[in-house]
């Protein structure tokens, strides 16, 4: 309930929200957790494994218990920490891991069966029968043990990503972080200050103390405001730095209130230096039944009182091993809340005139099912009980060293602090300061923050300003070790995974003595909180169980992210249309208008075929388009092919070096087919290259390999052949290029260009005027027909395409798509990346003689390896069906007639197939062992996945017009 005159919330305004359907009210400045406590809602969830009632444990991001689902339907977000959810009007929250309701949960019977469900339970119980694991055990366990569930629907909420840069990244806006940012900000450094809360001050937001003569939270707010006003400082609230990566890169998740654009932004921050001022996380003490709703960390009870004006109970008991927790009792009494007692395990604990301190006391049990009713404690005088509805516990503070471990460093144990602190130089350029560095008193935190900033500034070559340290409390308090109160029953270590002291001891007993083994065996430290509350205590218990000291026992590794990051946030900028750039040809609009289904070719979108009225099957369109080209003229947009402009005195030599053939001997105005190898002797790509001038070539690549070939040429000229003076640049985008193919292609182009093309032999090229525009014409063919490719600057592409199509249609031709293009090239045995798949050689393709003997080229030496030119290799052949079954399938394998179908009898495989309207049956390209020697042989094509067997004849891969007369016509 709310306490009078306490808290820094706006009590004048109200915010309505629902929890499991019930309506409640809170105030601006509330978190969901503070509002629930203010409404006296104690039980907010059921535990992971035993379904025990659980309440709110902390007031910060380490919260293991109070996980809820926020929102409804597709936008529902599961496993949100109630302590981090900012209250907003209309917030709809539901509890998790319970059925049918939070109050009555059927699976809480698990709790009764607890003695069968100890550590290693899954591994021991569900071992066999093996087949039961996936079908029976795992689904049942997943239903029973779990956190919130995803909606299963597409989440319409938007997320974004971004990139930020700074001299100094300050992580955390507590006293150390604020001071570090202030010093660096005043020095003129480019600073980012990131804090995961929505109010600055870190731990100060929940304390009653003074800095510079004013309340600490007010000092934090004014310092934040001052920093925010500096142009060189970017203050980011609600921003959790989630990971530290190489070369000063950090991940940070910024959350935004409703109505301010995308829900979250996942930032990549590149920082020259960083100050980690992440503070410390209070740890619990393990004792029997220490997990009941109403048992909270002492610091959280204090924060709910001081920051949110909420009393976490009517009669509060404090149980601690340190001085710091006494402040909780002090603040409660001052606010008029009854304090039952302070139970301090130390015999020399300080006394207070304001509340009773019972020295040498340890809580050994609690009672109350859905909320705490009483505690039992033990002193030298025996056991006694106290009626209390809130127990504030503190086992000390764990510095938040997490980010210092992200690059493989392990923190160092300090016996004087009973805490792990960051190892020196844990993350290059990162300087820990304040509580995360084991510095606890406020004054010391301020000084440590200032000093960290000065170190960073010095390393950056900047001058530190004179900044006065404000006055603040200098007392860090004392602590004596107490990890677990001995005794019977279950003492919880990891609240989120339901791991007890007994589980850890059992792990040790069963010889899982390494921390990493213990963790995996018990599941301690897993799930959303990653053991923030429990790791150190569990380690201490393991150390005790194995008779080792804590430093000897080690520590588990903290890995990114520090707190959960949704996949949507990490993948922001990659969803839907943003997944990959879309590349559209200049003919795209016309193509879509004709109803062509588009297919992705790399990033490009290309038409598969152009349906005509009356056609009901794609094959009808495809066959018709093939006939355009064979009988009249077809037009296709081939702009997606890579085009590389190569100029300079070394241009010819570069081409000779990257192609198997000679290009220095190519005449100006002529085009030649080229084959490009990888250095290991396998074929990388093919294409035609035209010589436009003495020192000027134009190379074409396949659509798929354009980027790779550009990179390859850059490597060749920058690294392997530095002697050559040559420039390469992609002109793929500059030119719109269209294939015009078929017996009537010359007629069409002569009509279009208004000039005779009689003087243009096969494989020639040159400049042409296209409607007054400077264009290029190439007489090349990928269809086997008389063929041309005409290119104009891309701005004229759409217009030229329309003109070409209109002219083609007027002479019984038309446009053709990828399907027809593929049929035309298979009929001619021309290659694509179905054949150039990275494991074939020039020899395999029947192009062994294309490797010029006159010069070195990339891949030449290794292509000559005996294994790559052995006749036993699978080599390119054509296949045609000769039996009853007429179907061919690409990907199918080849076997001798009568041979058993088994891998050792495999003779080869099919790469491309199509129905040839020209020949009236299916044809295929395949790689067959000793293929060229087996022309006329019969071979079985077997596709086991489609259950198709076809008897084929081995034929030449050039099915149509083998002497090439049509192309030269």
């Amino acid at each position, binding site marked *: 309930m709310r306490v009078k005159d306490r808290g820094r919330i706006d009590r004048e305004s109200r915010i309505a929200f629902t929890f499991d359907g019930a309506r409640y009210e809170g105030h601006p400045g509330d978190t969901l957790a503070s509002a629930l406590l203010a409404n006296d809602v104690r039980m907010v969830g059921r535990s992971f494994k035993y379904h025990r009632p659980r309440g709110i444990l902390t007031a910060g991001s380490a919260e293991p218990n109070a996980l809820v689902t926020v929102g409804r339907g597709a936008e529902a977000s599961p496993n949100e920490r109630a302590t981090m959810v900012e209250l907003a009007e209309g917030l709809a929250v539901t509890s998790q891991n319970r059925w049918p309701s939070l109050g009555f949960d059927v699976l809480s019977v698990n709790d009764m069966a607890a003695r069968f469900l100890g550590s290693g339970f899954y591994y021991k119980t569900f071992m066999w029968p093996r087949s039961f694991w996936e079908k029976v055990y795992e689904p049942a366990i997943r239903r029973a043990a779990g956190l919130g569930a995803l909606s299963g629907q597409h989440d319409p909420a938007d997320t974004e990503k971004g990139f930020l840069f700074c001299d100094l990244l300050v992580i955390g806006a507590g006293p150390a972080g604020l001071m570090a940012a202030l010093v660096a900000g005043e020095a003129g450094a480019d600073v980012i200050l990131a804090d995961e809360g929505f109010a600055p001050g870190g731990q100060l937001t929940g304390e009653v103390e003074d800095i510079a003569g004013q309340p600490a939270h007010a000092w934090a707010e004014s310092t934040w405001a001052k920093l925010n006003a500096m142009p060189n400082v970017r203050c980011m609230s609600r921003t959790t730095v989630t990971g530290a990566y190489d070369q000063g890169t950090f991940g940070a998740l910024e959350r935004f209130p409703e109505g301010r*654009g995308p829900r979250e932004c996942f930032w990549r921050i590149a920082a020259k230096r960083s100050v980690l001022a992440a503070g410390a996380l209070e740890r619990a003490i393990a004792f029997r039944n220490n997990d009941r709703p109403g048992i909270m960390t002492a610091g959280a009870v204090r924060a709910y009182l001081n920051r949110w004006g909420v009393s976490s109970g009517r009669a509060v008991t404090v149980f601690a091993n340190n001085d710091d927790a006494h402040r909780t009792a002090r603040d409660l009494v001052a606010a008029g809340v009854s304090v039952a007692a302070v139970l301090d395990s130390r015999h020399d604990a300080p006394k207070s005139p304001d509340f009773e301190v019972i020295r040498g006391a340890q809580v050994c049990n609690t009672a109350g099912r859905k909320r705490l009713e009483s505690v039992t404690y033990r002193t030298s005088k025996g056991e006694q009980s106290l009626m209390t509805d809130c127990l504030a516990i503190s086992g000390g503070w764990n510095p938040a060293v997490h980010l210092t471990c992200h690059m493989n460093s392990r923190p160092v144990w300090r016996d004087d602090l009973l805490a792990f602190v960051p190892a020196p130089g844990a993350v290059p350029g990162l300087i820990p300061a304040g509580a995360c560095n084991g510095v606890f008193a406020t004054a010391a935190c301020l000084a440590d923050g200032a000093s960290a900033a000065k170190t960073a500034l010095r390393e950056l070559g900047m001058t530190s300003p004179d900044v006065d340290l404000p006055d603040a409390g200098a007392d860090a308090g004392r602590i004596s070790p107490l990890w677990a109160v001995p005794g019977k029953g279950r003492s919880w270590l990891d609240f989120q995974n339901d791991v007890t002291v007994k589980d850890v001891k059992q792990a040790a007993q069963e010889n899982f003595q390494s921390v990493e083994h213990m963790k995996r065996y018990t599941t301690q430290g897993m799930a959303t909180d990653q053991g923030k509350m429990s790791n150190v205590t569990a380690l201490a218990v393991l150390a005790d169980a194995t008779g080792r000291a804590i430093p000897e026992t080690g520590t588990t590794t903290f890995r990114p992210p520090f707190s959960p990051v949704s996949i949507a946030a990490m993948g922001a*900028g990659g969803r839907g249309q943003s997944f990959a750039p879309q590349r559209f040809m200049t003919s795209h609009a016309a193509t879509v208008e004709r109803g062509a289904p588009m297919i992705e070719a790399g990033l490009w979108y290309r038409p598969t075929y152009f349906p005509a009225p009356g056609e009901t099957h794609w094959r009808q369109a495809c066959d018709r388009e093939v006939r355009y080209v064979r009988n009249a003229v077809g037009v296709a947009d081939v702009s997606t092919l890579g085009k590389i402009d190569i100029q300079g005195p070394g241009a010819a030599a570069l081409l000779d070096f990257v192609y198997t053939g000679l290009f220095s001997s190519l005449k100006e105005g002529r085009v030649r087919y080229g084959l490009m190898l990888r250095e290991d002797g396998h074929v990388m790509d093919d294409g035609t290259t035209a010589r436009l001038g003495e020192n000027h070539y134009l190379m074409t690549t396949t659509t798929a390999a354009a980027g790779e070939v550009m990179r390859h040429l850059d490597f060749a000229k920058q690294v392997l052949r530095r002697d050559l003076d040559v420039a390469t640049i992609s002109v793929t985008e500059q030119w719109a290029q269209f294939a015009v193919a078929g017996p009537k292609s010359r007629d069409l182009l002569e009509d279009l260009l208004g000039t005779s093309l009689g003087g243009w032999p096969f494989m020639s090229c040159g400049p042409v005027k296209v*409607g007054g525009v400077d264009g290029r014409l190439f007489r090349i063919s990928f269809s086997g027909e008389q063929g041309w490719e005409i290119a104009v600057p891309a701005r004229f592409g759409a217009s030229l395409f329309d003109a070409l199509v209109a002219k083609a249609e007027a002479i019984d031709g038309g446009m053709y798509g990828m399907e027809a293009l593929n049929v035309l090239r298979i009929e001619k045995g021309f290659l694509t990346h179905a054949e150039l798949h990275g494991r074939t050689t020039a020899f395999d393709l029947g192009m062994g003689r294309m490797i010029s003997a006159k010069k070195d080229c990339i891949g030449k030496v290794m292509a000559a390896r005996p294994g790559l030119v052995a006749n036993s290799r699978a080599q390119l052949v054509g296949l045609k069906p000769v039996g009853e079954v007429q179907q061919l399938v690409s990907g199918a394998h080849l076997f001798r007639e009568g041979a058993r179908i088994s891998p050792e009898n495999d003779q080869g495989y099919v790469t491309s197939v199509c129905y040839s309207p020209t020949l009236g049956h299916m044809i295929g390209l395949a790689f067959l062992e000793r293929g060229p020697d087996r022309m006329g042989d019969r071979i079985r094509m077997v596709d086991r996945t489609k259950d198709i067997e076809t008897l084929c004849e081995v034929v030449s891969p050039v099915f149509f017009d083998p002497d090439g007369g049509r192309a030269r016509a």
Partner: protein
Amino acid sequence: MLDLTAKTPCDGLLPVSHGPFTLTEIVPKALTSIAPFKGQAGAVSDTLQSAHGITLPSIGGATGNGSVQAIWFGQGQYLLTGPAPDGLDGIAAVTDQTDAWATVRLDGHEAAEVLARLVPVDMRPAMFPDGTSVRTLLGHMTVSITREGEGYRIMAFRSMAVTLVHEIAGAMEAVAQRL
């Protein structure tokens, strides 16, 4: 007689505005890639100076403005905007790129915040002042970005114009809601 009509890369896509941000298409008269041959950078610069009044920019820079501009475009490569260059035969590879790029201009107070959502390079005015130019990524696209006065000139492959506009407009809208 064939009469070809020209279409700009962002035809039908722009302008777009969200909050203080505007995105407009720029259609340069000519874009020419200039790659000086070995040891000829000085001669190329001199030639440009006498023919067009600008020198070759240094790495990451831009020279000239308005009607004639040269920007650094990669290792040993420059892009001349405005006139087609004269007198570079034999000292540089000269390639017409007028139609290869979609060019847009992003304007608006704190436009750097929009680019921060897309570009892995510091685009804040102090770090990327007038006269600087960079080759980098925008989303998944390789781009050239040049600071021009208060705005940014952004170039991406012509075929990617739809994606370019989609990405920038999306970030403009998101950031506008943040303000």
